[in-house]
């Protein structure tokens, strides 16, 4: 696997300067995305996962500043050094995004067709008629029945699942190399969620694009991602390939997250729960950001921020005492056996 990454994010820091103080929404995030793979970013509200994706596309609101020293290298170009014009050529063309709420993300006064055509006309050298044909083609591809008719409908005329399909059609109309999907199925019912995720997988195979899948649902991550980044308090807490992280998590937060959800595949006596609350991004605790809620905490943790430690090749954890988790796992297993 000596591939060049398609996207490299290095030391990304996005701060919001508000009246109450500086919100360090993203505070030193590193990760790569390789061609054709799905990278899952998982975290709770306030972990910085959505801000990360908006920063990649440079879609921050004016209060947000990308700090000096941050790097986003996409296909050999540093996106942070591009002019607005150059950025516009990438956005929607080489990197596309799907949002959580299709009703909010779609413009209610334009038809689905017009909105898909807008992207095509902007980035490709085709006339209106061809663009319309391409839009209809895209709608057919994402499984919208009667695309010739649907192309002239407005977003409110479609169901939630159909709207999300239309969003995907729009995002993929220019065959992007990278698709960022920010909670693409959170607003949908589970049976519709299954349809949409299946569709994304099929289209990924066909187009060979890379996907960044951002979600709070570890189940969605387990079934769809190749590699996983776990975020908490604006930092990457753990990253590894999907099988390893679910089998042998090496960060107490990841471990807590995995043991605190009700699951269909195993019997559970009692759910573990991570004590305390998600920290306020204005007042992160000293040292490790998770130390106030951690069951494995030692005095060092509240003084010093642990670095990302390579536990095994390709598996990084931001925890001094990741070895303690093995023991916990053993105790847990023994408890289950008894």
């Amino acid at each position, binding site marked *: 696997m000596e591939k060049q990454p398609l996207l490299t994010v290095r030391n990304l820091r996005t701060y919001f300067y508000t009246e109450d103080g500086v919100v360090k929404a993203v505070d030193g995030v590193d990760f790569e995305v390789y061609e054709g793979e799905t990278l899952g970013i998982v975290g709770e509200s306030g972990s910085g996962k959505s801000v990360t994706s908006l920063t990649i596309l440079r879609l921050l609101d004016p209060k947000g500043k990308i700090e000096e020293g941050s790097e986003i290298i996409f296909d050999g170009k540093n996106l942070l050094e591009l002019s607005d014009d150059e950025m516009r050529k990438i956005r929607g063309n080489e990197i596309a995004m799907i949002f959580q709420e299709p009703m909010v993300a779609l413009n209610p006064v334009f038809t689905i067709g017009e909105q898909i055509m807008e992207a095509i006309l902007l980035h490709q050298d085709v006339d209106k008629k061809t663009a319309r044909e391409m839009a209809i083609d895209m709608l057919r591809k994402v499984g919208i029945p009667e695309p010739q008719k649907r192309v002239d409908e407005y977003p409110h005329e479609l169901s939630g699942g159909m709207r999300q399909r239309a969003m995907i059609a729009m995002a993929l109309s220019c065959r992007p190399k990278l698709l960022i999907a920010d909670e693409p199925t959170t607003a949908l019912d589970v*049976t519709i969620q299954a349809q949409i995720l299946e569709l994304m997988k099929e289209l990924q195979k066909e187009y060979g694009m890379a996907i960044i899948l951002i979600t*709070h649902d570890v*189940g969605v991550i*387990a079934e769809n991602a190749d590699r996983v980044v776990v975020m908490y308090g604006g930092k990457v807490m753990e990253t590894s390939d999907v099988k390893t992280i679910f089998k042998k998590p090496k960060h107490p937060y990841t471990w807590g997250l995995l043991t605190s*959800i*009700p699951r269909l595949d195993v019997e559970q006596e009692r759910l573990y729960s991570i004590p305390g609350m*998600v920290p306020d991004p204005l007042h992160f605790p000293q040292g490790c950001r998770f130390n106030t809620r951690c069951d494995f905490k030692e005095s060092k943790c509240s003084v010093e921020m642990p670095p990302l430690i390579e536990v095994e090749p390709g598996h990084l954890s931001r925890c001094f005492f990741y070895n303690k988790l093995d023991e916990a796992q053993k105790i847990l297993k023994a408890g289950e056996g008894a």
Partner: protein
Amino acid sequence: MTENKATLNKNGNSTSEKKVLLKIDNLVKHFPIKAGVFKRIVAWVKAVDGVSFEVNNGETVGLVGESGCGKTTVGMTLLRLYEPTSGRIIVDGEDTTHYFLPSWKAKNYVRKTYLERFKKSGFVPNDELDKKYFEIFTKNGESGLIDYLVGNLEEKRLAFRRDIQIVFQDPYSSLDPRMRVKNILAEGPLAHKMITRDQTIDRIGKALEEVGIHPTHMYRFPHEFSGGQRQRIGIARALLMNPKLIIADEAVAALDVSIRSQVINLMMDLQKEHDLTYLFISHDLSLIKYISSRVVVMYLGKVVETALKKDLFDEPLHPYTKALMSAIPVPNPEFKKQRIILQGDVPSPVNPPSGCPFHPRCPVAKPICSTEKPALREIKSEHFVACHFPGSL
């Protein structure tokens, strides 16, 4: 009163003798769609269309389904935040359907539901309730039964409002932003004269402590709390009324993953401590599997399957239940499961499909499914399915 309740709970909890706390009998709720200048009714949204199930004392029943299946409407109708279109809501062995009607309508309801049948010659009681009311009817006559059911309606309403409490989904809109937590929590118990003003601080402090919030925080306003804490306050508010039944409508859906398990565990601990009965309404099958003892699956205003938790998850018999289970993402990349991807969307409850409501999306539908409505029948002990071909998927 409290003593009374304690003995009652003990009975309810003994496994040999189950006591039905809540019985929903063929509940129907249709909402009118009005249009035009004269607000003529042009169609009906059949949100709940003939739903029946029971909740036993001390158990947790999970009511599960996708958006638009009517699960929330069941909860709201049960609480009489909506008046049912038809059907009966029986709480603790008494018909409560007419409690919130004006008394002439309530009398009409009693005449129609019971007296008309009782007066016919050769009447045979359908169930326990019929038997009980028929006895009163034969002993005290028509006016006797009306008096029994409609007399003291105001008192009955109060008791009903005490006995059934709800915890809402959105902890941000379910607490009055202008009231201090203390006043939010004291409102109910004071109105029902369950506590005196001098006792408020003491009682509310205790209730907050029980849900894991520091008693001194009772002077704060809701906006000073996080989502998880607000949900705890909502639970404390329900608990303070010593309810027989707590309806939890997507009570943890709005919370973050790490906070969700805290609240779920709290609710389960409180259940053990207070012998609570829960009706847990949720779209999340994994959560339902964890928390409930019995499960009711709804689709498009109808119950499609109901069974004890273990039976349902070990052997789902309705194709919809099976598809729903296979659609839930399992947090284990090495877990192999049967993937059933349903086609299409949930149809509109204004124009539900003929026959079985699930047939347009059902992978194993046969011609009969589009013409004939399958009845909810008991296939195994306590396992009811509304399907012509149960277990075929």
